[in-house]
């Protein structure tokens, strides 16, 4: 039985097409994926992302502990900063990708993927034993909405009455709202400017209703995937996994090899310096028509060299594009490759994963 978020009834009432995702029954789309996608690229849309998990880490050694389990470098950061990075296995494989919010000098909030909540929390608890820290899984307590698109700032300020123009990219603040402390950050997963709000279920329901009443487009996971894909953002399970390290996925900039020891560091150093990995995640643009979908084989010189991780006919550009995990010897830009679609090879070339330019407000 899938879990439900605090907005589940509202999705059903809006007539959403519901699907299981990460252990939750979630809206895939309300009426029309293309319209939802375009609302976020051109105006604004709101997503229920309450399925995401939240883990609080507090204590004297909180920073030291997060540094140990996380690939990015949070040392001496200002309160209010957010970091993107991964938790890794010793062998460099990815346990999850996550955001770390620095709430206080000894207080961090880790935002993790819904499908990985139990696995991640078990991992965190296991290593927390060696540190003077307290960990709490708050995933069932926080609800979360994402307001995304070029008009998100004006929407948050005018519809919700929350001042957010002072927030820069990847920062947050805690504010009083309807007699409660809530978190608002300038973050998202669409490649557009946007905000994410974390609060109790009651407040998230209140915020959702206000936005929907104001005519803001509700957006499902369908367009969340097409949006993140076009700007080359990874989805755990597709472009990152227990087998796919951040180095293989082209995310080295979030793995700070110069910092002190962290889980998976040695493997990443080895992968980076000695190129010991065999495959890389790359972008492919097809020169023939056909939609490359997850799992379709990628070939070069007539032999299999990998598979498609995510692919679409891009809603924003109309191109037939995909990300794929392939033999690193074919990963150079402009290498000709074929994607096998319905058992027919379609010609393509290796391109950068950023198929569409991000429009962040920094």
């Amino acid at each position, binding site marked *: 039985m899938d879990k439900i978020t605090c907005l589940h009834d509202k999705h059903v009432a809006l007539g959403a097409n519901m699907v299981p995702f990460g252990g939750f029954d979630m809206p895939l789309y309300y009426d*029309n*994926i*293309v319209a939802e996608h375009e609302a976020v690229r051109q105006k604004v849309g709101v997503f229920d992302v309450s399925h995401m998990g939240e883990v609080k880490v507090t204590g004297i050694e909180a920073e030291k502990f997060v540094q140990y389990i996380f690939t990015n470098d949070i040392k001496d950061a200002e309160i209010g900063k957010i970091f993107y990075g991964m938790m890794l296995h010793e062998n460099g494989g990815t346990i999850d990708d996550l955001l770390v919010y620095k709430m206080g000098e000894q207080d961090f909030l880790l935002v993790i993927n819904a499908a990985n909540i139990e696995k991640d929390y078990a991992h965190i608890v296991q290593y927390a034993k060696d540190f003077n820290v307290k960990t709490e899984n708050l995933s069932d307590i926080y609800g979360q909405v994402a307001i995304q698109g070029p008009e998100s700032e004006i929407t948050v300020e005018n519809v919700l009455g929350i001042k957010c123009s002072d927030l820069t990219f990847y920062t947050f603040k805690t504010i009083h709202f309807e007699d409660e402390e809530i978190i608002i950050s300038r973050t998202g997963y669409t490649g557009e400017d946007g905000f994410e709000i974390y609060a109790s279920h009651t407040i998230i329901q209140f915020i959702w209703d206000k936005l929907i009443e104001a005519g803001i487009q509700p957006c499902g996971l369908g367009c969340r995937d097409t949006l993140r894909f076009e700007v080359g953002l990874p989805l755990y399970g597709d472009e990152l996994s227990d087998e796919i390290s951040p180095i293989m996925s082209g995310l080295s900039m979030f793995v700070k090899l110069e910092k002190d020891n962290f889980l998976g560091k040695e493997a990443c150093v080895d992968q980076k310096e000695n190129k010991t990995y065999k495959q890389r995640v790359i972008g492919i643009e097809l020169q023939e028509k*056909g*939609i490359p*979908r997850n799992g379709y084989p990628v070939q070069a010189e007539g032999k299999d060299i990998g598979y498609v991780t995510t692919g*679409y*006919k891009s809603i924003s550009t109309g191109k037939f594009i995909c990300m794929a995990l392939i033999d690193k010897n074919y990963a150079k830009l402009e290498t000709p490759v074929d994607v096998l679609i*319905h058992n027919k090879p379609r010609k393509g070339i290796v391109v950068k994963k950023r198929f569409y330019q991000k429009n962040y407000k920094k």
Partner: protein
Amino acid sequence: MAKIIEGLYYSESHEFVKVEGEYAYIGITDFAQEQLGNVTYIEFPEIDEEISAGDSFGSVESVKAASDLTSPVSGVVVEVNEVLEDEPELVNKDAYSNWLIKVKLSDPSELESLMDAQAYTDICK
């Protein structure tokens, strides 16, 4: 409620067949387009390709999924609806007037095994 038109033949896999003389226009039903959501691409067969009843002759693809097209009849493909190559979303607007392929029927007796509008209405419930 999905639209169902009298006078057409229907398959269990939600294709319709509209017969004109020795030719048939094949498309997907309104029910099928509703289930698929936004159609973004259609994979057509080649002109002159011979297809048999029950064979896959292409696919209709929405943003999220590819759905195989199964031919309800046997024949030779004489035309594909090229308008849909650039505007596949027309299938969502009106599935019945935006047929996918035109086939020269090789065995018109196969039509008898297909459903009429009444029978098809029952399976869409």
